[in-house]
């Protein structure tokens, strides 16, 4: 028996998946299995929670990174939560929350929806699309169809499958490859022009016709929609030319709301009645003092560092006494902390306030010693924990989504936890106690590095970082610039001093645009100014 079992075990082939993905999840079912992409239903071995993983079997495919990147930056009630990303040499698995419920396609197999039911679904879809399109740059779903719309048990609508979404690139004229599902895709998705948000509105129109009539043929559906106003809205959504359609999901939503005045009044009445009921019920419970029996206090997340907690609360818009749940932490993508007082919503805001405090000499070191709280924020993309007492960066190694890390002015002696962070683009290590940065070449997207006031003495400290475009070395003096020519993509460099005074190696850098130097180097700069294809400025 056992040998046969072993033989079978050899036949299945799960080894193609990233090992850390398999360690965390058990594959229960192949939902859609194609050679280039497998969507699998999985179970978290520890928590027992279900999830859906989209595994791109060949990472070199065009849309491979889109789903993960798009999902991880979005947070909306109508979209599944991004849970993580796992990678092997060839395979990329993007894991998202599993959404229990039925697909609109399944629901419609039984019967078309009534007008009020359809309206509930359509209005929610408008809200989701408004959110997606309001991103900067706008996110276009491009595959809106009944199979990708899920109605959850509590009546909410969720939009899944971002496999072919793209961030709208205003510069691109045309989409080159056809994606999407034919019946629900507008003409421009066949390559006439680039798809923008009106693409999704076309598909939403077709979905609308399908919900109301069960038909996807544009003329047949338009004729079958009984409500004349809705029929007009349908025609406008599905106009051949994007210019003839609604300009935004918000505009479509307003049109839908206007389409039936009676329904609105009825809804308002129902809402008033329900609110009154709830009010009486609450009053009843308050009198009977049953309220404390009703709901046990939900468990909140605990933080070690008060400053990190404050920054998380700022991002979530939560006051000091409100509980924070683990689920809410999934939506935190940015944190900005500088010194003991500055907690900001954006990097610009942080820089502005800090600048003011430095100018007035009122900046002081913050209390953060440990970064372990950050591990609770798996979707963190940008983090600033500047001017604190942090000496251990290890927690950052488990946050592969990080794009921006600012840990300047901390007593850090080891940056190895940052090695291999695949999405890291910008890193500020100003004032840390490290002399060699060459191993950061394992971060393939790193283009912007601030290593000012560190222990680096020659360009060799940055050997191999040939993808850098910006290198900031304020308050740092090199012995020599020899070797800088390796950093051939540099567009900007700041440097406070060079001991041998020879700036000529900069002339070899083909893309260099701006060199910002310490005042002491002005004379040396004058010497080569004539030959330079870039401009010098001074601190």
């Amino acid at each position, binding site marked *: 028996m056992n040998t046969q079992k072993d033989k079978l075990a050899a036949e299945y082939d799960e080894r193609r998946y990233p090992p850390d993905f398999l360690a965390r999840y058990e594959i229960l079912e192949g*939902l859609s299995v194609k050679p280039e992409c497998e969507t699998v239903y999985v179970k978290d071995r520890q928590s027992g929670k*279900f999830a859906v993983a989209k595994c791109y079997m060949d990472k070199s495919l065009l849309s491979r990174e889109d789903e993960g990147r798009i999902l991880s930056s979005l947070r909306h009630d109508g979209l599944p939560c991004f849970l993580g990303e796992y990678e092997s040499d060839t395979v990329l698995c993007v894991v998202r929350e599993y959404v229990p419920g039925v697909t609109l396609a399944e629901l419609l197999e039984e019967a078309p929806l009534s007008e009020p039911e359809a309206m509930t679904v359509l209005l929610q879809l408008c809200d989701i699309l408004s959110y997606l399109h309001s991103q900067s740059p706008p996110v276009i779903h491009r595959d809106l169809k009944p199979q990708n719309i899920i109605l959850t048990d509590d009546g909410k609508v969720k939009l899944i499958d971002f496999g072919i979404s793209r961030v709208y690139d205003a510069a691109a004229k045309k989409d080159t490859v056809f994606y999407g599902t034919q019946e629900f895709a507008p003409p421009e998705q066949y390559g006439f022009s680039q798809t923008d948000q009106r693409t999704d509105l076309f598909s939403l129109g077709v979905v609308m016709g399908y919900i109301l009539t069960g038909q996807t043929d544009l003329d047949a559906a338009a004729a079958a929609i009984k409500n004349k106003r809705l029929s007009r809205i349908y025609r406008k959504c599905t106009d051949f030319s994007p210019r003839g359609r609604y300009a935004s999901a918000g505009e479509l939503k307003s049109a839908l709301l206007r389409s039936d005045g009676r329904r609105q009044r009825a809804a308002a009445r129902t809402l008033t009645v329900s609110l009154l009921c709830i009010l009486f019920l609450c009053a009843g419970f308050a009198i009977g003092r049953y309220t404390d029996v009703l709901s046990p206090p939900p468990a909140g997340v605990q933080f070690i560092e008060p400053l990190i907690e404050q920054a998380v609360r700022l991002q979530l818009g939560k006051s000091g006494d409100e509980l924070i749940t683990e689920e809410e932490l999934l939506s935190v993508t940015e944190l900005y902390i500088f010194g003991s007082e500055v907690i900001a919503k954006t990097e610009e805001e942080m820089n502005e306030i800090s600048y003011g405090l430095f100018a007035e000499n009122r900046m002081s070191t913050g209390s953060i010693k440990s970064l372990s709280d950050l591990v609770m924020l798996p979707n963190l993309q940008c983090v600033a924990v500047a001017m604190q007492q942090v000496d251990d960066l290890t927690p950052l190694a488990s946050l592969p989504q990080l794009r921006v890390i600012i840990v300047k002015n901390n007593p850090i002696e080891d940056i190895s936890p940052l090695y291999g962070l695949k999405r890291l683009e910008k890193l500020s290590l100003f004032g840390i106690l490290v002399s060699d940065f060459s191993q950061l070449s394992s971060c393939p997207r790193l283009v912007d590095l601030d290593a000012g006031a560190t222990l680096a003495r020659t360009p060799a400290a940055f050997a191999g970082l040939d993808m850098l475009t910006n290198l900031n070395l304020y308050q740092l003096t090199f012995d020599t610039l020899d070797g800088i020519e390796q950093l051939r993509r540099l567009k900007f460099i700041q440097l406070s001093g060079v001991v041998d005074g020879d700036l000529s190696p900069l002339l070899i850098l083909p893309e260099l645009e701006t060199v910002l130097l310490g005042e002491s180097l002005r004379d040396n700069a004058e010497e080569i100014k004539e030959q330079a294809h870039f401009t010098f400025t001074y601190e």
Partner: protein
Amino acid sequence: MQTDNTETVAIGTSTLLRRILKTSNLRSFLDQNAASMTVPTFVEYLDRLCSERNMVREHVILRAGIDRGFGHQLFRGSRKPSRDNVLRLAIGFGLDVEETQELLRAARRTRLYPRYKRDAAIIYGLSHHNTIIEIQSSLSEMGMTLLGGERHEHTER
């Protein structure tokens, strides 16, 4: 149930496929097998299996290890089975792998793929006509989720 020339009891897709490959006359094939070529509902499919295999519902439910009340709801069509429960019904009927794939298709659930470890273990159990207890215990032995351990009746594709 059968007349001399035409079958009124419909047959599985694999049988149908074999007949297409063997037939020399497409038209007579299409005429003779018309009844088999309409897609049956899941409930019809279950009833068809019962009569083909001369089994009663009660017996299948017992061998599938499904709760009795729930099992009868599945046969009546008042509940839709999850994929795991379709697999349990397949074990209850004693179906082989190919027949199980057809049952999954009739229930509009995804097929078994040998490439996934858990599916591979289930395929092994089906092909050896193991009982539900044997299959569950080998899943448990290998640290995998038991049949019926997927909580959601999910429909995402």
